């Protein structure tokens, strides 16, 4: 798979660090992560629950709420810094430049407002449209996301839609003002398996039409394999491996990624036991001094207990493991 030319990247994140202030002192939820997303590219972000995937998404459009806050990092969109924007400027950017889709379509829509009201207010918040023009546009959007008979359905309330249909509405809302980047935070986790593939296909097709990039946050490696161009694997607030999806799937370098790949069931392959990674991700309150994965790693060395590996380039990707730096046991 050819990698999109990364210059200039649509989104460039450098050294993003997010901290949670607690009574017992600050916790590092995201620890100096850097990545970029090219125009039209789909970057998958995978990791276990609590690895910091969702916080990364929220940090980009500054939706973190106290006690969680970004303490460091540069975020640039099309070369212009967007961290440190005023509240007003950030509001204008949300939805207009960066759209966001949340995990649960059942709770993402205001239950007391019709689909029309929610679409029209979103359209008019960003585009100079008259109410009737916005309504026409809203119907068009619903048709695009595959809502049947949108002229009638648009005046329904969210409870009249099924989960899959609601997620389509959510996608329509996120795409309403034609953003250049969609941050999709587990967009299919709450849906029926049968609907998941449809929703992902839809999202992918609509973004491809518009030339929009997607940051796809999920813990479903299957979705990543089918959808993403590149993938970043997160573990305990850090990116442990990043690279083109084919490379990550076929020859993962980081022991954690290797463990993840071994844990994917497949129908065709010989039915041996799935490998599993023993132990659990460390709590943020008890991060080890060295590599956060070392306690669970089968290849851990003495070095791993005391020092943290940084991302080391490898082929077209990079992995944060001392094995790649040529260290030996």
């Amino acid at each position, binding site marked *: 798979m050819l990698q999109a030319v990364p210059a200039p990247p649509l989104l460039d994140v450098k050294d993003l660090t997010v901290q949670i202030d607690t009574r017992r002192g600050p916790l590092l939820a995201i620890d100096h992560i850097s990545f970029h997303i090219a125009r039209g590219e789909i970057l998958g972000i995978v990791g276990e629950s609590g690895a910091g995937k969702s916080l990364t998404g929220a940090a980009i459009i500054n939706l973190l709420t106290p006690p969680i806050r970004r303490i460091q990092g540069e975020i640039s969109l099309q070369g212009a810094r967007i961290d440190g924007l005023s509240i007003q400027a950030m509001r204008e950017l*949300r939805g207009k430049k960066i759209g966001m889709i949340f995990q649960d379509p059942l709770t*993402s829509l*205001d*239950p*007391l*407002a019709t689909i029309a009201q929610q679409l029209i207010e*979103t359209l008019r918040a960003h585009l100079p449209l008259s109410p009737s023009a916005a309504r026409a546009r809203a119907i068009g959007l619903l048709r695009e996301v595959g809502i049947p008979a949108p002229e009638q359905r648009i005046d329904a*309330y969210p409870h009249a839609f099924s989960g899959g249909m609601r997620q389509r509405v959510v996608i329509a809302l996120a795409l309403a003002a034609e953003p250049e980047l969609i941050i999709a935070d587990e967009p299919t986790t709450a849906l029926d398996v049968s609907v998941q593939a449809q929703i992902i296909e839809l999202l992918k097709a609509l973004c491809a039409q518009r030339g929009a990039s997607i940051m796809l946050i999920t813990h479903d490696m299957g979705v990543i394999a089918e959808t993403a161009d590149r993938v970043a694997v997160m573990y305990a607030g850090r990116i442990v491996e990043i690279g083109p999806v084919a490379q990550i799937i076929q020859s993962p370098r980081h022991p954690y990624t290797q463990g993840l790949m071994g844990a994917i069931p497949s129908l065709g392959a010989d039915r041996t036991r799935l490998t599993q990674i023993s132990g659990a991700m460390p709590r943020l309150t008890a991060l080890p001094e060295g590599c956060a994965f070392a306690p669970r790693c089968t290849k851990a060395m003495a070095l791993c207990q005391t020092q943290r590996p940084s991302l080391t380039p490898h082929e077209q990707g990079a992995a944060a493991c001392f094995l790649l730096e040529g260290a030996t046991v």
Partner: protein
Amino acid sequence: MLAFSIRRMIEAWVVMLIVALLAFVLFRYVGNPVDQMAGQYTSLADRELMHKQLGLDDPILVQIARFLWNALHLDFGISYHFREPVSQLLMKRGPATLELSFAASLFAIAVGIPLGVFTGIYKDSLWSKFFLGVSLIGVSLPTFLIGVLLIFAFSVELHWLPSYGRGDTVALGLWQTGFLTASGLRALILPSITLGLFQLTLIARLVRSEMLEVLRTDFIRFARARGLSERAINFNHALKNTLIPVITITGLQIGSIIAFAVITETVFQWPGMGLLFITAVQSADIPVMAAYLILVSLMFVTINFIVDVLYAFVDPRIRLHAMSAT
């Protein structure tokens, strides 16, 4: 929607029937009506006659039917104390209480909801903490104390507002209103603040906690992510979603404002139903008490009914549920 309303209406009538039966029991069996009306020197023969005339010899079911029939025609008999038909007394006193309650509710809602929204949105600001502190006083101080303090400050010391009575009233048909005269409006201020203060703080605190709850929900986050303005988020989405519990509580509170205006009316010598009720209790004026009981329940039942219908207006899910359930 219509079927929903009708069903609720039937339920309301059942409640009223039960209350009316209670009122009947109160009227018939708490003391002997003849003893209440007859003087010390009434002869036994006269007593017998009264007993007959009041229909107390009739079978109990006939008495109940007669009582209900009369109540339906707003005929609650004659007050022992005032020697006047009870319905006439209530007609005279009702407007005073209703106007006072209306002003108090308006004050509570018009100040309470914005205060709740403000303290919900800016939960950490100093003003919010100040309001919450003050509202604690509103919740915990008894009504009569607030009334007396207000009288002391604004009537006794500052001479700004009258300390008792309704001021001048104007007759609109049967309705004596104080809304149309300057002195009537001035007289309304202190009692309605006194009566509405508790409700105000209750509404403000309720709206605040509901706002805090709703502002944490996913759809508010999604609304933010869509780039909506804070105003649209707070008022179009958040406030609207807090309204169901607020309507319930506010509705029931309006009921209790009317029913429990007794204390405020006593403090301010407000010539309303509450004052009438207190007098009735002091003089064991059973017909007045029975009528008051029925009237207050009618008020609660009506308000509950309105609240139920309002729900359906605010929340489409209840509309749907109600329609499919009938």
